[in-house]
């Protein structure tokens, strides 16, 4: 068994998602457990409800605007919940709570790093995204630049992020279902793939949004319930909780301050950059800003999302701390009843064991179902973002030069989501036994170094030209990939070399400035007549960015 554990190394923790590779304290393969019928039944209820919603949404999804952006008819509050849903993954629930459980305060620092991007998105991006974009962030990047080149670049950035993120989610789903439901790996991958394609092709953005909203409410509700039940055992006193946690933890009082996880400043700052600006470059999150009717609702949605994410991170931290006492001192949750040994089901289980300890099998089943539903909702959002990049950016605007009909575009989009679904299932099965901890770090690195620089420069810097945007994007993409491949997480862990060529695992602190510098340098040196025109067009773009006058897709519902 240990041999299996050592040989196989898919990381549930990092794999389950938004959590980057460097956040993974333990990389492990899960083992199939006994069937959990509570969890399976509750998950079945979730699936039925979401399929009902998809049927309802399908009748309301006729045009391209419906399909890509739910007709711009989502309210700020709904969209805020959906954004929070896109951001709070199974990794947030399981991974971050286990990080707090093992490392204490270091886990809290991660939570804060994950959170700090939201105010920046509010101040600098939300309104402009809404006012300038239609369906994809490439709409904004190519607003005054060359449609074909910039859209192709943006679509490559989007698809790379989507595919890597999808593989990570798929492998995470497979590991999770073995652990929580007691079903085989492949069944999870196929279930996730099939449902994702159904949601996206039939229900488009409307169904995807509602799946996300329901999941966000379940996750917030379930997490809060477990936290409150656990916290009540400490009389709702923080000091009481902390002192008992310190007493129970092997590191004692050290868990109340920063530990070794972020001791290296380059790693710490790079982590912060990657998380902050990577989030601001995730295509499925950016796409959410086009589903609201105007800038007012876009702002409201970030406000709601920021609240939900911040609240949930606090809940997760409290869960981790309470688990130190309630789970950590209970031999029933450890292999062979040894509380110094391995936890049953692996290192990502404190939140689940805590749910069992305070609420029995029913609460455990509920939380398991929610964790799986969470993956399902996130992959649906990703698949839609990928399909939109293919149909709206590549097909309609690059191949057809903007001359395709809406009907064709939507048809291509549905076909693309099918292809993405098949690809995701295939890759999910292929990657089962690979160590994929690096994938999430890579995803955030690319989003921060390729998507984000192009997007923010196109919105804020008059001088950006097509050449600058394309070269900046290429340099960001290539350098982020190169750094991750040459670092320990791929070069040593996956490829089996003795020592890494590049000492740091976080690409952002290097690749982001490289991308910006390239975009600036190439744009500044660009003396072509096209460049002059592009710079001139910024003035009109700025008016629309500020006022929303002429913005696409106002609400029709």
């Amino acid at each position, binding site marked *: 068994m240990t041999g299996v554990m050592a040989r196989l190394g898919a990381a549930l923790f990092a794999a389950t998602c938004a959590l980057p590779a460097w956040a993974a304290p333990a990389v492990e393969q899960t083992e199939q457990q006994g069937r959990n019928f509570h969890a399976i039944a509750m998950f079945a209820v979730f699936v039925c409800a979401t399929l009902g919603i998809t049927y309802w949404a399908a009748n309301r999804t006729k045009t391209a605007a419906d399909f890509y952006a739910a007709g711009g008819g989502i309210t700020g509050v709904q969209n805020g919940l959906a954004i929070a849903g896109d951001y709070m993954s199974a990794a947030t629930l399981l991974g971050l709570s286990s990080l707090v459980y093992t490392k204490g*305060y270091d886990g809290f620092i991660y939570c804060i790093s994950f959170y*700090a991007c939201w105010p*920046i998105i509010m*101040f600098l991006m939300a309104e402009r995204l809404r006012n300038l974009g239609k369906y994809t962030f490439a709409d904004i990047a190519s607003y005054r630049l060359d449609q074909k080149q910039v859209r192709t670049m943006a679509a490559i950035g989007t698809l790379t992020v989507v595919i890597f993120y999808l593989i990570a989610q798929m492998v995470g789903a497979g590991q999770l279902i073995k652990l929580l439901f007691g079903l085989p790996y492949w069944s999870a991958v196929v279930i996730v793939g099939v449902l994702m394609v159904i949601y996206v092709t039939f229900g488009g953005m409307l169904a995807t949004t509602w799946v996300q909203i329901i999941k966000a409410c379940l996750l917030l509700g379930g997490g809060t319930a477990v936290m409150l039940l656990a916290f009540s055992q400490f009389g709702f006193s923080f000091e009481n909780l*902390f002192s008992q946690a310190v007493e129970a933890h092997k590191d004692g009082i050290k868990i*109340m301050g920063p530990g070794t996880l*972020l001791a290296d400043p380059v790693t710490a700052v790079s982590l912060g950059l990657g998380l902050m600006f990577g989030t601001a470059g995730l295509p499925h999150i950016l796409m959410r800003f086009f589903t609201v009717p105007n800038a007012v609702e876009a*702002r409201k949605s970030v406000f709601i999302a920021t609240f939900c994410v911040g609240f949930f991170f606090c809940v997760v931290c409290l869960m981790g701390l309470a688990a130190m006492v309630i789970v950590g001192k209970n031999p029933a949750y450890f292999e062979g009843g040894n509380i110094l040994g391995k936890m049953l089901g692996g290192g990502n289980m404190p939140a689940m064991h805590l749910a069992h300890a305070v609420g029995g099998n029913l609460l455990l089943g509920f939380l398991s179902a929610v964790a799986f539903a969470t993956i399902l909702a996130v992959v649906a959002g990703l698949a839609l973002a990928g399909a939109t990049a293919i149909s709206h950016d590549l097909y309609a605007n690059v191949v057809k030069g903007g001359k395709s009909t809406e009907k064709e575009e939507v048809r291509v989009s549905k076909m693309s989501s099918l292809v993405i679904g098949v690809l995701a299932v295939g890759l999910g099965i292929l990657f089962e036994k690979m160590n994929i901890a690096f994938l999430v770090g890579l995803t955030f690195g690319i989003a921060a170094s390729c998507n984000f620089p192009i997007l923010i420069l196109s919105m804020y810097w008059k001088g950006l030209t097509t050449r600058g945007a394309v070269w900046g994007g290429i340099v960001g993409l290539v350098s982020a990939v190169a750094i991750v491949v040459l670092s320990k997480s791929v070069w040593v862990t996956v490829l089996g070399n003795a020592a890494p060529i590049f000492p740091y695992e976080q690409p952002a602190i290097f690749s982001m400035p490289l991308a910006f510098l390239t975009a600036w340098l190439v744009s500044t040196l660009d003396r072509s007549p096209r460049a002059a025109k592009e710079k001139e067009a910024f003035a009109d773009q700025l008016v629309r960015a500020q006022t929303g006058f002429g913005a696409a897709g106002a609400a029709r519902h």
Partner: protein
Amino acid sequence: MSSEIYEKIRRNPRFIEMVAKRNRFAWTLSLIVLVLFYSFILVVAFFPKLLATPLWEGATTSVGIPIGAGLIVFFWLLTGYYIHRANKEFDKANVEAIKEATR
């Protein structure tokens, strides 16, 4: 068609003033968040002991806890403040600029 209207809006002095104000406001708030967040990260990297100091004598709770929680709450309040000013002030200037230009 819209190019002419954009031109008019662009020349509207109240629009120009609003853009300058909004830019200053948005960048100031962003700077506050960035400076606070990266100072926190640098304290974590260079002076971790600072955050581990007990909140009061004999307490288990360290100063890092309220500081971290404070950052989360403060950042959220800042987003609320931004919305408040954008809804009240900036949007009004926008509506007027558009109205004047399309008259």
